[in-house]
């Protein structure tokens, strides 16, 4: 069973690394310009010139998929940063201060958690016009409760641990206690949450962009490619396959990575 659990981690790591390389390559090289149109060569089936075919404007689907990794990774990374920053403030305050601060902050987190995520994201993009930045902010806010809960739990657990008490007894200040002693201890749980939120971010972004309320043209997005592909389903069925496959692989990679790290930590504990 142990080796089976390690496989989870390795498959996850490999998938994430491959997609990361694809993104890095796309920064310097894509086979065709992602927005380079060629009306004469529209809706071509996959072939030697266009490995994944072309879309309704004759744009190379592979190039758009490659540039889409940049969108997916930046949405994942920055929304996790927002969720982590907000969640750390709330969770650390609740866990460290305890008592009424804990009760108050956690009730707020419960309320935010009970609110269906995509609805909150939809409201936010309705108020502020949809764009890459708004999508990131909206998704980041969704993650604040998850991070807050994990970080609060970690603080509650370690606050009374002997090594923290010892450090306090030796005269460590609040900042030193939090950042030098407590934070390193809860890091692995935070990394697991970050990995799982990363994949959730990619799913939500894809859904919002599919609805036309996420990333806007000309920024390439896998979700919007799926939206555009739907009109050409009988003429170009391959168009709908590649973007969905890449969303799935990316989400799968980060899910497995998160699960794998969690298994590793649980085995050590």
């Amino acid at each position, binding site marked *: *069973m142990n080796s*089976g659990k390690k496989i989870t981690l390795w498959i996850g790591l490999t998938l994430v690394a491959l997609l990361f390389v694809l993104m890095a390559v796309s920064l310097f090289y894509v086979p065709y310009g992602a927005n380079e149109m060629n009306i004469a060569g529209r809706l071509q089936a996959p072939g030697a010139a266009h490995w994944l075919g072309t879309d309704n404007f004759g744009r190379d689907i592979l190039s758009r998929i490659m540039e889409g990794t940049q969108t997916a990774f930046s949405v994942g990374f920055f929304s996790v940063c927002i969720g982590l920053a907000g969640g750390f403030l709330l969770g650390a305050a609740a866990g460290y201060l305890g008592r009424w601060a804990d009760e108050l902050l956690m*009730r*707020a987190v*419960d*309320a*935010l958690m*009970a*609110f*269906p*995520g*995509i*609805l*909150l994201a*939809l*409201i*936010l*993009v*309705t*108020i*502020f016009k949809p764009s890459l930045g708004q999508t990131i902010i909206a998704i980041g806010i969704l993650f604040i409760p998850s991070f807050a809960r994990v970080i609060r739990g970690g603080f509650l657990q370690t606050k009374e641990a002997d090594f923290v008490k010892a450090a306090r007894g030796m005269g460590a200040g609040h900042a030193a206690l939090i950042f030098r002693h407590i934070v390193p201890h809860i890091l692995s749980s935070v990394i697991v949450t970050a990995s799982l939120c990363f*994949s959730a971010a990619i*799913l939500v972004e*894809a*859904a919002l962009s*599919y*609805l*036309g*309320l996420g990333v806007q043209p000309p920024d390439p997005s896998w*979700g919007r490619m*799926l939206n555009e*592909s*739907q009109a050409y*389903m*009988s003429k170009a*069925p391959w168009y*709908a*396959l590649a*973007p*969905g496959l890449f*969303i*799935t*692989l990316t*989400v*799968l990679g980060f*899910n*497995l990575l998160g699960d794998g790290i969690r298994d590793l930590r649980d085995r050590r504990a």
Partner: protein
Amino acid sequence: MNLAYAARRFVTLLLTVFFVILVTFFAFRIIPGNPALAILGTEATPEQIQELEAKLGTDLPLGEQFLHWIGGAAAFDFGDSLRYSEPVLDLIGARLPVTFSLALLALAITVLVAVPLGIAAARRRGKALDLIISAVTQIGLAIPSFWSGIVLVLVFGVMLKWFSVSHYVPWSENAWLSLRSLLLPAVALSIPQIAIVVRYLRTTMLEQLHLEYVRTARSKGLRPSTVYYKHVLKNALIPVVTVVGMNFGEILAGSLVIEQVFTLPGLGRLLITAIGNRDYPLVQGLVLLVASIVIFVNFVVDLSYAWLNPKIRLR
């Protein structure tokens, strides 16, 4: 059931609903600039803007507007849609059955498929079948349901032509055709839910297997299948009921997106159209109502879980 627990959960329910009312109110008050201007565009005359402001109620002081919104929400009066000039509640009422039947069908498929798979995975833990189920559920968790919807349309609608896609038939007209029109979207919607429930059921069943009552049942000489189905499954299903109930919200939210794939005339399409039209009263009413339904379902599930499982009453 412990009354204090129920009372505490009820207070949380009220707080959460109040939070939703607050969010839906202020969300549409912080629109950069003037909401009336945002709706009408920059070419609107001052008279037009004034008229729309009066209609939206945004010409009143903020406190008064808020009281209006709370009072209206309590009476299920969310005002009139700007686009359709009909009460928001009527528009929602007309589309609620579509979304609701879709969500219920997806829930039914989830339970029907996930329970046998979860049992099979737990009974054959570590064996090939368990590993295959575990791999497949990982993939199921990663597939966006709107994409599996598109693929289902591609395979069963476009290639095999077994289903006429994007043709919704209401229950009242023809139950069989209605089921057919909802089947593919419901399947797409249930895939990630099946993955969640299978994994959850497998874990809870394996946890039960270590408990003493299982040892007692086994040493009594009961057949393994009797132990599994009569004892373990019964106890393992309690937390699963909670997971299924809690995921109702996710199913409902997912159906908002899936309706777009299959062009079903439900709440999701209404919401997306309303957002596109900047029909703020309609968006506000829809968000408040859908969020409240989800919160209320979670509340009921929580209480029934506490009722089924006495251990939680102590907390």
